[in-house]
């Protein structure tokens, strides 16, 4: 299906689907809510990014405290092993479609704390990451750029592909 869609593209049915997808994606990319997940230093820059000067809310990104309502998670800061399991849990609790922005060197690869015995070397060891924002810590502008990249990604994908496969036998609708 996807193959036909990407190669032919002229089929009427798919044409309509993609028009609808465009509209859905237009809504989705403009309403990406993020999970409040400040781990360390980057968490302060995350607050600053939500603050008056950078103001993530311009893009429709508002912070949510509960993972259920969040569209993406900004992993802002050093992820220790102790926290890594919790991060995984939080990611699992989010509802599809969901994304992850890894903010800062520590979340990208362990960063400054490569030498540490208790730090997870990158959040992508635990959850899949969509956008990496480099910096230690990244400036608010960099995080905003990360959000814009995420919007690009959302714009260019089909909503159906992002749905969670239904779990068999649990009765979940």
């Amino acid at each position: 299906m996807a193959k036909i869609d990407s190669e032919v593209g002229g089929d009427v049915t798919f044409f309509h689907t993609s028009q609808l997808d465009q509209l859905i994606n237009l809504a989705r990319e403009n309403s990406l809510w993020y999970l409040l997940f400040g781990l360390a230093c980057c968490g302060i820059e995350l607050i600053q990014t939500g603050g008056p000067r950078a103001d993530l809310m311009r893009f429709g990104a508002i912070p949510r405290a509960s993972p259920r309502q969040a569209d993406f998670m900004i992993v802002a800061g050093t992820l220790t092993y102790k926290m890594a399991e919790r991060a995984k849990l939080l990611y699992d609790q989010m509802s599809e479609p969901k994304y992850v922005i890894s903010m800062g060197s520590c979340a990208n690869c362990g960063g400054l704390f490569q030498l540490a015995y208790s730090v997870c070397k990158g959040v992508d060891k635990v959850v899949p990451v969509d956008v990496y924002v480099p910096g230690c810590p990244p400036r608010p502008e960099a995080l905003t750029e990360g959000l814009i990249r995420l919007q690009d990604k959302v714009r260019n994908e089909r909503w159906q592909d992002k749905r969670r496969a239904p779990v068999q036998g649990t009765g979940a609708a």
Partner: protein
Amino acid sequence: MEKLILRRVDRNNEEMILNFGPQHPSTHGVINFIVETDGEVLRKAVPDVGYLHRSIEKIGEVTGWHGFMPFTDRIDYVAAMFPNEGYATAVERLTGIEVPRRAQYLRAISCELARIASHLVSLGTMSMDIGAFTPMLHGIRERETINDLIEALCGARLTYNYHRIGGVAFDLPEGWKERTLAFLDHFDKFLVEFDRLISFNEIYVRRLANVAVITGKDAVDYGLVGPNLRGSGVDWDVRRDLPYGAYDDFEFAVPVGQGFKGTVGDCYDRYYCRCLEMGESSKIVRQALLQLPEGEIMAPKVARNLKVEAGEALSRVESARGEMAFYVVADGTNKAYRVRARTGSFTAMGIIESASPGLMIADLVALIASLDVVAPEIDR
């Protein structure tokens, strides 16, 4: 896990166990509280920390003496100047390096700006935890200007790495003095506005006054430091009582909790001490800028590959979260044998378990916020 942590708690079936954190809007970073409640009233809140334990003390043993400086930033990321200064001071004590007067002044200026920035975040998040969102963003707005100033000074917004063993990294840039003085004029007005906006708000006062009272005796016994200690009525400030750096040159008052709206040592006292402290810091910066002596900013002959004779030293600086002590042990090599940071938040967390019984859930949030804990200071 819960069983282990609640070993000290007598349980019957009336209580509910809540996992308060580590991802919770009001735990200020990643701290977990295992909370036992009876309805809205707490039986006990047991902190479970270590979610941000980044092995900084171990890393200090493998990096060189100079190389550890960037890591000190991450010990207290909200006010990174203080661990910079604390570590530098400890090594200077151990090696006998004399810091030039101008560098000491610059340290004082940068530290006091960082203190203001830190308190802005602290008070802002506190008001947010109490439910008022706007003061937080006003605080962030002012903090952005401080960030700009510090960025002009040292090139970083958050993790400054400005102080060096033997002095500071950069001298003042052109026009910085005037910019800072102009900001301070604005900031003093902002403080008045902030007080009007939130400090004297009736609901706010009632939420904080007489809540989670920590007596002076308890505060000393549990090793609280800084604004938390002063909020409990103990008149102690390292800057004044054991002066270091340039602080004996400045005139400033030390705000002490006196039961501004309730009992001495309640959440409001801790809150308001910080408010007053920002004003004092602004005074210090102004004095330091106006009296700033000319001269070098680095001590001469600080070797790049520093070797330190065997010995040990403890330095004390008054950080935004109270006395921060760095304990360094040298064994004659070019690496530290042991680096230890004693931080204010660590002991502040220790008191929560004994201060929490009988509070309500909303009060626990106020207590945590009023102690102004920062996760990496606890875990390092």
